[in-house]
């Protein structure tokens, strides 16, 4: 995990590293569209149940339904649209943290950071021959930079132009569009996130993206993957250093009970997590950005 690296001044540090099925430098043909993420937040249970199974938005990350030994017997959720096998154990942790903090605090900090340009996640779809069904599209994910203009709805206005964050790597991969929904193969994602009042890079292992697309690009969807217990405890430790409330002792006790991914020996070492996002069409400047000082220093939130 990249959690030890504080990057408070960076825009969204999302890096898709090449995983199975991904290749770099491919030349795509067809149409393309760039989008900037305008909202992002953890997917959670919605309080409903179907056949005694909790309903939660998310993705079937392990391509299995149920709670077998490889999932450390953790029961999957069912999606609001009826998709089974949803892996989203992180929702329990999120609910606890929301209780300890105040409801909406976490998402409020994240949204504020998106709106002021600290967290700009750009998703570029290339090589799209058909925006409804296409079995081979190229996905590029990188960080944007720039100060966004907000629309009358309070979110980043569509069709704005940004720079690519010069410090951001571009991850290139493949996916497919099925009935207007983009589905990617597993890959590794790092999402800059605000949690416990600090900024950190949240790494999702074996992550997948499931998102609606239109000719204007990715419009909304989910990104899910495994978050390691070690990473979460590290984040808590950093937070504990700045406040009276100590999260790490509590979390170290309860987290193993939620883990459902990345089994090592008899224990799962990661929690499945899903983030839902919305995005709008955007552009990149065609000229190089002027040089600017990198102001990364610490990860303490200004809030």
């Amino acid at each position, binding site marked *: 995990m990249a959690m030890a690296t504080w990057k408070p001044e960076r825009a969204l540090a999302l890096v898709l590293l090449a995983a199975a099925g991904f290749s770099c430098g491919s030349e795509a043909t067809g149409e393309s569209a760039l989008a900037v993420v305008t909202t992002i937040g953890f997917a959670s249970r919605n309080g409903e149940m179907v056949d005694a199974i909790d309903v939660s938005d998310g993705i079937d990350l392990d391509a299995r339904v149920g709670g077998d030994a490889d999932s450390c017997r953790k029961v999957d959720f069912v999606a609001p649209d009826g998709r089974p096998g949803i892996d989203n154990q992180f929702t329990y942790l999120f609910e606890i943290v929301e209780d300890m903090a105040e409801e909406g605090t976490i998402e409020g900090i994240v949204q504020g950071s998106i709106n002021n340009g600290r967290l700009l996640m750009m998703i570029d779809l290339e090589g799209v021959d058909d925006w409804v069904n296409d079995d081979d599209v190229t996905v590029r994910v990188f960080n944007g930079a720039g100060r966004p203009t907000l629309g*009358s709805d309070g979110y980043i206005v569509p069709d704005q132009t940004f720079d690519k964050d010069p410090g951001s790597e571009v991850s290139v991969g493949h996916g497919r569009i099925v009935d207007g929904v983009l589905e990617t193969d597993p890959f590794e994602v790092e999402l800059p996130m605000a949690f416990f009042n600090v900024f950190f890079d949240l790494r999702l292992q074996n992550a997948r993206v499931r998102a609606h697309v239109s000719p204007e690009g990715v419009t909304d969807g989910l990104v899910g993957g495994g978050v390691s217990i070690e990473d979460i405890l590290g984040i808590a430790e950093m937070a504990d250093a700045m406040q009276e409330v100590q999260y790490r002792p509590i979390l170290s006790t309860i987290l193993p009970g939620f883990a459902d991914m990345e089994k090592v020996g008899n224990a799962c070492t990661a929690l499945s997590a899903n983030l839902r996002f919305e995005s709008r069409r955007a*552009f990149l400047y065609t000229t190089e950005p002027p040089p600017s000082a990198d102001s990364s220093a610490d990860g303490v939130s200004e809030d």
Partner: protein
Amino acid sequence: MTTSARALCAGLLLVGLGCDGSIGMREPQPEPEQPAFEPQPGPLRRLTATEYRNTVRDLFGPDIVVPSSLEEDQRPDEHGLVAVGVSTFSVSSAGVQKYEDAAYSLAEQALVQAEDPAAFVGCTPGGTVDGACASRFLERFGRRAWRRPLSPAERDRLVAIADDAAERTGDFHQGLVYAVATVLQSPNFVFRAEVGKPSPTRAGWNELTDYELATRLSYLLWSTTPDDALLDAVAAGDLTTPAGLEAEVRRMLEDPKARQGLRAFFDDMLILDKLLETSEIQKDPTVFLHYNAEVGPSAREETLRFLEDLVFEREGSWGEAFTSRRTFIDRTLASIYAVPAPAREGFGAYEFPAEAGRRGILGHVSFLIANSNRATSSATKRGAYIRQVLLCQPIPPPPPDVDTALEPSSPSAPTLRDRVARHLQDPTCASCHQLMDPLGLGLENFDALGRWRTTENDVTIDPSGYLNDGVAFDDAAGLAEVLADSDLAHDCLVRTLYRYGTGHHEVASESAALRDLQRSFEASDLNVKALLLALATSDALRFVLPPSDAAEVME
């Protein structure tokens, strides 16, 4: 059809100005015999707010803070020129007070609050009262401010004011404050008198004095007071000969202030000042995410930069004002146009791709946003603007007691074309609306904010229309081509510039001068810079009638 709609249409018919539907492209026909040109009395023109600001900056320097509260400019009608309005309306009592407040504010900034008032004055006083220093300063300052040399009596009176005030306040520069404020409150500063003197060559006409002519030229070409070089040229008699006048006009057109002058003209003609008033262009925030307070000023700047580039950088044809795909946009406008911003800060040049439907000023947000409703586009407003501002064809306003709101969209009338159809089908409405709606419907691919769209309420938009019978177009790009080729549009620019330069609506006896300018404009391949030169050196700008004469307004 509702009763109110019938009343509206009937009212439009009764007003009866230019609603016979016969207006269109100029057909080749024998030249009617033109009466000889005869000028009109020169108006008494108050400086517009723009002219006042530009003038004050030239007098005091670029750092002067010009009071924002000045007498409000008025247009003689919705689409008329401020340049005509300022010779039509008198100054209000509140306006007089504002001029006084502004005069003292400006004088105190330059003479009391400035770090080195002596640098502004140009001499160091020998004591609290120094009549010689005050006289030199006031003579120089007064010449620029009143656009002519002060008479000895005028100068002495101002010096006396300065001396007296200096004595009372115990401060030389404080004394000058009162004299400078007097200069700035004087009608000689606030108004431009264009009376002239009896012409030695044209019986019954007056010829502007060279200083009056220089003032006309300066406000026409620069939108500000004459510089010292122009006043020196007048003093040397250079403006008395055609060659001398042309040389001076050419110098003025090459001066950077000519861009300021051109911007002021198009600001007035195209009613771009409306874009600075948020209340005039406010859009429904639940419909238009992009609208904010920056949109109006950015949109105005785009159009002004585009025209400045067209006229001075490329010296292109006026037709390109309608057809050009090149423009200048910032991040705010780029997001509305849904194109990559060409510059990170400020404005950059951008050329829309050929397949884009956006062309010229009618594709600019400035026009589209200002001629729309709060939540919907308006074919009638857009068409009326094209007719009146770009083709100089008057259309009467609807009667004030008539509800002009269209019915909301419905499954049976999903598009604006459907909703305005009754205007075009009912003969009583069509007489006027056929002049507006078919033009405006050509721009239906642009919503009320100027964003491109192909559907309205999920129905494909039909953007076809016509200028008049026989001159049809398929879409906005087609409309642009029609206007670019339209003699009416070419002549309208000439007519509007003429009104701007002379400060009045032309009358029948001036048609020969207009015709000459229009021919000259066509001969120059619609070069606006050449048109400015032609007007500035024409008899129409030099001659006026003595104030007692009047003539019938020509429309």
